[in-house]
């Protein structure tokens, strides 16, 4: 369920970066980043204000409108563009007549919540285990390494389905989805963090901390975690949209959120067959999903470029000066 990290990304040691504020400023200076950020902010706001927005429209996400459907034609909405009207801004759902706009904005809540939650779970477990593997004994490293391998080798879809079936139904579905996606998808993060930890461990400032008498835990917290933030953040930006799609996939297979709750995945899974009869119904959730993924990917890429000095010096004829090394002067052409 999680994307595989690339070796290239894995092997790269976290590099020192300029101060956080500076990175932030540079990020905001880019037009694409601002646009992507705007999309994300809008999405979050929409999700948060979903009840308000639907109230403005005067609809709710669960009410049926049989009068807007052509029952003999399989329940396709009457009217053009999937039944778009002043009452129903984005038309109604085929087969039920539920308001598409209301379902989309309410669906955003679930999709984002589950995706963000699952990403947090993945990152938390991944960082914890990755750090433990990188800092712990050989045995522990081996153990975690093998567990990671098992996690990667498990057909996660099957396990997601089975796990969803094992848990009692009164357990909150969104939470369960979050946990299932999260618990099955941490292996990539853990590998990344382990590799990063191993290369960071070689750095002299970690040795210095050891000489200062710092405990392993203190070293992990003070010296490693801050340096891990950048690669992990970047990786999380890749995980997040994947988790949105995972949620969609599980909903598609019928083990997602409980009806009548809507999520984008659930809408998409129901929509595919309507492609010809009611294209609007397919395009809307697809477009939203696409925008979300695009926005997060752009942000992730930008963060990575800013935090990764190799990317920064990309395509420049860096003339590393004398023994002073790059960094202090303009000669490095940074």
């Amino acid at each position, binding site marked *: 369920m999680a*994307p*595989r990290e*690339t*070796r*290239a990304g894995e092997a790269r040691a976290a590099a020192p970066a300029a101060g956080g504020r500076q990175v932030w400023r540079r990020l905001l200076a880019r037009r694409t980043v601002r646009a992507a950020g705007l999309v994300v902010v809008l999405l979050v706001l929409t999700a948060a204000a979903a009840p308000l927005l639907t109230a403005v429209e005067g609809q709710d996400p669960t009410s049926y409108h049989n009068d807007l459907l052509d029952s003999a034609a399989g329940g396709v909405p009457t009217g053009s563009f999937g039944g778009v009207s002043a009452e129903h801004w984005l038309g109604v759902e085929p087969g039920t007549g539920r308001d598409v706009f209301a379902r989309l904005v309410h669906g955003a809540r679930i999709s984002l919540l589950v995706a963000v939650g699952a990403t947090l779970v993945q990152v938390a477990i991944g960082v914890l285990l990755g750090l433990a593997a990188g800092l712990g004994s050989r045995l522990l490293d081996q153990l975690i390494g*093998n*567990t990671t*391998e*098992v996690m*990667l*080798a*498990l*057909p996660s*879809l*099957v*396990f997601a*389905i*089975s*796990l969803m*079936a*094992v848990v009692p139904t009164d357990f909150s579905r969104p939470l369960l989805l979050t946990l299932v996606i999260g618990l099955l998808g941490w292996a990539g993060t853990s590998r990344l963090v382990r590799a990063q930890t191993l290369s960071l461990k070689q750095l002299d400032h970690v040795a210095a901390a050891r000489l200062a008498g710092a405990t392993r835990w203190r070293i992990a917290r003070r010296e490693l975690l801050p340096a891990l933030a950048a690669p992990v953040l970047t990786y999380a930006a890749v995980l997040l*949209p*994947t988790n949105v*799609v995972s949620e*969609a*996939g599980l909903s*598609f*297979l019928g083990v997602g959120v409980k009806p009548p709750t809507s999520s984008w*995945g659930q809408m*998409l*899974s129901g929509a*595919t*067959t309507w*492609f*010809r009869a009611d294209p609007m119904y*397919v395009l809307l959730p*697809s477009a939203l*999903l*696409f925008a*979300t*993924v*695009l926005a997060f*990917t752009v942000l992730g890429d930008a963060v990575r470029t800013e935090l990764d000095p*190799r*990317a920064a*010096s*990309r*395509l*420049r*004829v*860096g003339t590393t000066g004398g023994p002073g090394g790059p960094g202090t002067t303009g000669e490095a052409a940074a």
Partner: protein
Amino acid sequence: MIRFLLRKALGLVGVLLAISLVVYAVFYLAPGDPAQLACGEKCSPAQVLQVRERLGLDAPVHLQYAHFLQGIVAGRDFSAGTGLLHCPAPCLGVSYRSGEQVTDMIAARLPVTASLALGAMVIWLVLGVGTGLLSALRRGRLGERLLTALTLAGTAVPVFVIGLVLLIVLCAQLRWLPFPSYTPLTEDPQQWFWGLLLPWFSLALIESAKYARLTRSAVLETLAEDHIRTFRAYGVGERRLVTRHALRGALTPVIALTALDLGTMFGSAVLTESLFGLPGLGKLLVTSVGLIDLPTVVGLTLVTGFCVVLANVVADVLYAVTDRRVVLT
């Protein structure tokens, strides 16, 4: 190298054992009664008992697992009614549902998934690496941005959407492609090719996005390296710099990722196979999960797990082969 492979082989056995244990545990906890399912809903309790006994489900779960392990090492015998059905090692058991040997079932479906995965791989490599290269070369231009957005669209849209839309447009409306179907390569190569073209593309479109991004960043990274500067300083043209030097650098991660993806593909082509009705491993897996057909599920997860682990090893080896600086331990 030998040591590396030995160590990996040992690890593989461990991983597979762990996988089978986990599958047994999950299915033991999961609701549902395989005997009842195999017998049919209207079976009487007495009949269900008989079936349970026949399937060996009356034994405690740890014994069932032990029998399963024994089958892998030494083979097992099952009652086939008129006689005994010998299932030679490595025996993964017989399906609760059909009574077929799991190994046979897997062997019958492997070519389907393999055809799907390998064909898709070719396309996603051509498409992904090509797009990545192009976007690395035309960095910052409008065309490149469009291309990047398009490859992103690939990652964002689930296969069940892309596949179905392609099917309706290409097969039903435009009739450019035949409807997907599987014909064994040995039977009719042409039909094999045409029948799988659409599934390949649906899978590849999604995968190629990843490769485009990987290629692009790897090429850019390599272009920023010192040795590129060397060749630039010797008057080597930009095109040659990219095709001979930068691409070569990008090849290593691409090859390694390809191995990994191929490995996972064997377990993850579920949605594609279901959508296009290709009787492959993924489809069998999902069906078997629904039927609580434990031997089939365990057998399939072992095979797919094996593929993933193997792919990891192959990726490591390829990594070392394509990049001599890497050493294997």
